[in-house]
């Protein structure tokens, strides 16, 4: 619109955020004339594109803020910001078996029935996958049912595991699965019904961080053969502008737009539970994002 050559914004988005963020990207592009190139996928896949293939985006929006300190800061990014919450739910559709009777009190029993197909994401690859396992442990404590966590794992067998939230949603929509463990935002943006879970187990309440941390899960580490232990934490989405981002001015414009009250409202309406202000960790973040002291 303003220049002869259109500016570009390259943005990598977690699969679970794609649907709600797309209208925001479209409006941003229409208003500024900046061409948006969006890539959507598993959070870890985006990280590998940066660290292994050296394909650096201007912005990176991930489903798990912990990925930044673990794999990206300080070598590939100087700062990151927590910007939205989410919570675990059990998503289903009208044609799921026993859809009429499932509720927040009986889901453990229904999901363990033999005629029900339950899906979950790969805990080694997707944050939503290991958070599902953490939620199982919290549920075992909360409902005081010995062996619940293990039997829930057994009832969502390997054949019903997929690599990320998006692929799981496809199987639920196609009727291949009856129930999936996924984020509330994914369930809402796909138009699925869902069973809300108590705050004590849904990983959605930041004030319960110490309670969540009592559950731990072992997943594959970043070196073959090694395992790493992950503690339960509140679900927080994180964003960052990596070092050597090719279009920093476009990134700054989009961050300012993303923090505007209009967009925060729009994303909340699209079921993304935006924080009132992003919480920045590290140095060098644009002024608009920094939390006032």
């Amino acid at each position, binding site marked *: 619109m303003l220049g002869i050559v259109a500016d570009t914004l390259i943005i990598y988005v977690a699969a679970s955020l794609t649907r709600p963020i797309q209208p925001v990207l479209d409006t941003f592009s229409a208003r500024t004339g900046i061409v948006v190139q969006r890539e959507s996928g*598993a959070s*870890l*896949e985006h990280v*590998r594109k940066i*660290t*292994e*293939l050296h394909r650096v985006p201007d912005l990176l929006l991930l489903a798990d803020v912990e990925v930044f300190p673990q794999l990206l800061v300080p070598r590939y990014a100087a700062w990151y910001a927590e910007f939205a919450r989410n919570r675990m739910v059990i998503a289903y559709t009208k*044609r799921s078996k026993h859809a009429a009777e499932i509720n927040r009190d009986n889901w453990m029993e229904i999901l363990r029935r033999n005629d029900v*197909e339950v899906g979950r994401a*790969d805990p*080694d*690859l997707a944050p939503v996958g290991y958070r599902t396992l953490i939620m199982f442990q919290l549920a075992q404590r909360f409902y005081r049912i010995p062996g619940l966590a293990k039997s829930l794992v057994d009832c969502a067998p*390997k*054949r*019903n*595991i*997929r*690599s990320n939230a998006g*692929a799981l949603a*496809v*199987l639920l929509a*196609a*009727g*291949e699965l009856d129930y999936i463990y996924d984020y509330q935002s994914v369930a809402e943006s796909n138009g699925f019904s869902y069973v809300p879970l108590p705050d004590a187990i849904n990983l959605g309440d930041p004030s319960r961080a110490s309670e969540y941390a009592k559950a731990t899960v072992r997943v*594959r580490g*970043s*070196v*073959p053969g090694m395992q790493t232990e992950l503690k339960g934490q509140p679900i927080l989405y994180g964003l960052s502008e990596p070092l050597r981002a090719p279009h920093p001015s476009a990134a700054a414009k989009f961050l300012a737009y993303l923090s505007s009250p209009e967009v925060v409202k729009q994303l909340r309406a699209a079921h993304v539970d935006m924080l009132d202000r992003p919480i920045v960790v590290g140095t060098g973040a644009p002024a608009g994002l920094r939390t006032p002291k």
Partner: protein
Amino acid sequence: MTDGNRSGFSAVSRSIITIIVALLASLFLLFIVAPVLGLVSSGGARGLASLATDHELRASLWLTAATATIATILGMIGGTPLAYLLARRPFRGRAVVAALMDLPLVIPHPVAGIALLLVLGRASPIGGVLYQAGMRVAGSSTGIVCAMLFVSAPLYVSAAREAFARVDARYESVARTLGDDAWRAFRRVTLPLSARGLTAAAVVMWARAISEFGAIVILTYNPKVVSVLSYDRFTSYGMTEALPVAAVLVLFALIPLAALRALRAGGPYPSR
């Protein structure tokens, strides 16, 4: 301008054309070969060495070979009669059928996976019957075979059709006039004459099947074929762990491709 001048000029232009053609051919060859060589040289040795210890990789290679072979056999059983009809029998709508057979080649592979899920998944009429009978398509090796068959069978049918078309129809007519029925003429004349082309078609189908990723990852993530395993290793550990898996797949694919070349080296088609 004299004739001699003209022929001198064309000799120069001919050699220029030869140089350009050779240059283009070399660049093209380099474009194809360099990534493959890079992959094999950086991951091949480690990949082969890890075969001894990496149980998951061995299981994955075995699964990939077995499912691709089953898909290819199914492709030959179903595709050979269809290819013969397309090559030999003019029928109404033949062009449409031929075009339909090419369609899977243009469908993006994850979409192909979703399309198969809609037809063979538990919620579909066919998939529902299979599911009741205890046969799952999604999340099983059956799903892998279905995905491989769908994306690679068009290559078989297309090549098999060409193989049949290359056999002179007069040989069949002669067999018929000597008293053979249609099936006997096909079995005794057409099939032997087109056997090499059919085998080549099957090898291409097999090679395409083992490389499939997009449709398989939707239908069956576990158990993992080699393409899914290399994606999994790349995402979990990065390039150093993904390259050996991919390199082993390339080395492994050399077997049918070398077999194909050996077949072709046997000389021109006997029908010629």
